């Protein structure tokens, strides 16, 4: 949550995942709902889910807390929305992806590639004067890389929205997305207050 100059809560970001019927016009229904209820979409990602006929959407919405806390309930009213979960307060893993096309003439190409290496990103295309890298991770990681690449000359940045899911249960009987034991699991990216919007 950010605060305005008076210190009062101003805008809040929430992460919502929804399973929706894969029918024409569903996205228009959802985006129309967001518009008329005053929810601002920070990002929206859609793709087919593991269940036939259903797509999964991940939304990041922002707005005043009393407004955005209603997003899930409003979405659930739509006939074609099968399941909806506001996972903002849950323990989640999430990723964004960016393709960054950066100027890389022969004289500084090795420096750019070194940076790519440090960030463990894939270089997926090399041209005579540019290369394109694919970076996956949290927002801070992507933002840092963009900042570092800026001096070489960024030609294009193409970012996806966030995709998210609840963390799996670690012990028997635990619910998915519960906030326990996560710090000990190195494999996962553990969201922090500054980065994830999940707290």
């Amino acid at each position, binding site marked *: 949550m950010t605060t305005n100059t008076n210190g009062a809560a101003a805008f809040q970001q929430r992460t919502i995942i929804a399973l929706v019927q894969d029918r024409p*016009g569903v996205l228009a229904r959802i985006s129309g709902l967001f518009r008329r209820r005053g929810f601002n979409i920070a990002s929206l990602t859609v793709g087919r889910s593991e269940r036939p006929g259903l797509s999964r959407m991940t939304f990041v919405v922002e707005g005043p807390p009393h407004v955005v806390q209603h997003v899930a309930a409003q979405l659930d009213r739509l*006939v074609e929305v099968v399941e909806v979960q506001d996972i903002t307060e849950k323990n989640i893993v999430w990723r964004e992806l960016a393709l960054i096309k950066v100027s890389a003439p022969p004289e500084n190409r090795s420096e750019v590639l070194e940076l790519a290496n440090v960030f463990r990103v894939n270089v997926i295309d090399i041209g005579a004067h540019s290369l394109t890298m694919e970076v996956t991770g949290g927002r801070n990681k992507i933002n840092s890389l963009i900042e570092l690449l800026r001096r070489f000359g960024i030609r294009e940045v193409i970012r996806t929205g966030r995709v998210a899911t609840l963390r799996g249960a670690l012990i028997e009987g635990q619910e998915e997305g519960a906030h326990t034991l996560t710090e000990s699991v190195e494999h996962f990216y553990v969201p922090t207050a500054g980065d994830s919007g999940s707290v």
Partner: protein
Amino acid sequence: MVAKKLNGGQIVCEALLNEGVDVVFGLPGGAILPFYGEISKYPNLRHVLVRHEQGAAHAADGYARSTGKVGVACATSGPGATNLITGLATAMMDSAPVVAITGQVGRAAIGTDAFQETDITGATLPVTKHNYLVMRAQDIGPTIHEAFHIARTGRPGPVLIDIPKDVFQEEAEYDYERDSQIDLPGYQVASTADEAQVEKAIELINEAERPVILAGHGVIISRAFDELRELAEKAEIPVVATLLGISGFPEDHPLFVGFPGMHGLAYASLALDEADLIVAIGSRFDDRIVGDPKRFSPRSKKIQIDIDKAEINKTLVADAPVVGDVKAVLGQINPKVKSTKHTDWLERVEHLKAEHPSLKIRETDELLGQHVIKALSDVTKGDAIICTGVGQHQMWAAQHYRFTNANSWFSSGGLGTMGYEVPSAIGAQMGNPDRLVWSICGDGGFQMTSMELATAVENRLPVKYAILNNNHLGMITQWQGLFYDGDFQAETYSANPDFVKLAEAYGMKGIRVTRQEDLESAIREANEHPGPVIVDFVIEKVDNVYPMIPAGGSVEELIEESL
């Protein structure tokens, strides 16, 4: 049953009949003509020809609210369909189950800006509960059955089905058994509520010392009249009804208080203000009741019972939200509520009524709107169905008509649609041929939809139209006087037609009343006339509705009339 091969228009008719539809309000046009070519072959499906498609939507709405069945409206593509929108939005805001069927241009022409083409599913997204564009005749049957299911269950609402002209003409198999199977994984209808939520609500009711029930439209939609009365009597809780909750609780009952809010009765608003518990039953805490949410009933806890969980905490934070169907939830709550007396609190409410006589009409020789409603209420013994438009006449009607029958008040509460009163009364009369239907109109709203008088005459519907005629947009005059420094603009109707002659032009009976002493005889004369009637009540030109709590205010800003 063997599947029958039918064309799309026939499938629409058969599916409507299978849904129990007996009347369709509509107006034809090119794209929907194939449907009209079939409907005449189904004598059990009565078509009522309206004069404007908005009237079809409002008539279907009035039919739906008054019967509890789904109302059906149909219109052609383009302007026919867009003319429905105000009616659909009205039904959406007030949770009325309406199914609208619109013709669309042929499939090949969709998206080409063809003659009379409009993207009506796109245009009605925000004003329908759901909508469909049906691109294959084989989908018509399942879509109609799904649409009716969605329109009438849960929180009811309008559903629009758009069918291209050539889909009406295409043949497909229709099998009711198969096509009426509902498979909607994303649409669950709440019935009983979660036990923990119910327990919390019961605890608050049992602890309360100054409880008030705020009975909303949900009580009427759910037909929870007996359950509401049982709760009120068992726990001895006074009942405040919202504008659309009127006629959900008998008004001659000692626990009945009245309707609160902007033009509600002062004592009803004050009872809510002084309460320590509000049991909101099927009410969405509309801004006309709440005003300033920070100052609304600040000492009370709130129980909010609603079938739509998106209403919970939308305006006010509920201490005990209960998501479920009102009738089912009250069935859960009532057995566990303690039989109690709230003698002191009821005395206090009676005291508020005595101190704030909001229903007292000021002494004058002029004919006032309040006099008309009071006389209508007295002469009809509170037994009529009342439809209203929006404005001063609506507020006076809500205040002064004393309903003795459940579900007899139909008014555009949410959208505030002027003109709703003329066609909605046609729908209500069609659905209730044995009841007396009075449409209470303002002279402004009446002229927005008065072309539907022809529909009433043509269909021999004996609706009685009471025009509270002050040659003004009365509520506009009131607001300009109170909030815009008396800068009166565009509020006078200096060229109203002679409404008695208008009645006669339509072949109706017309009566004019200008004096208090003629009220009762004129109303009796209208009641006894077998056909539709206009009574032109010429009331005082400029008058304000009181009490009044200005928009966004609280009882601290309550304005009462000095009598």
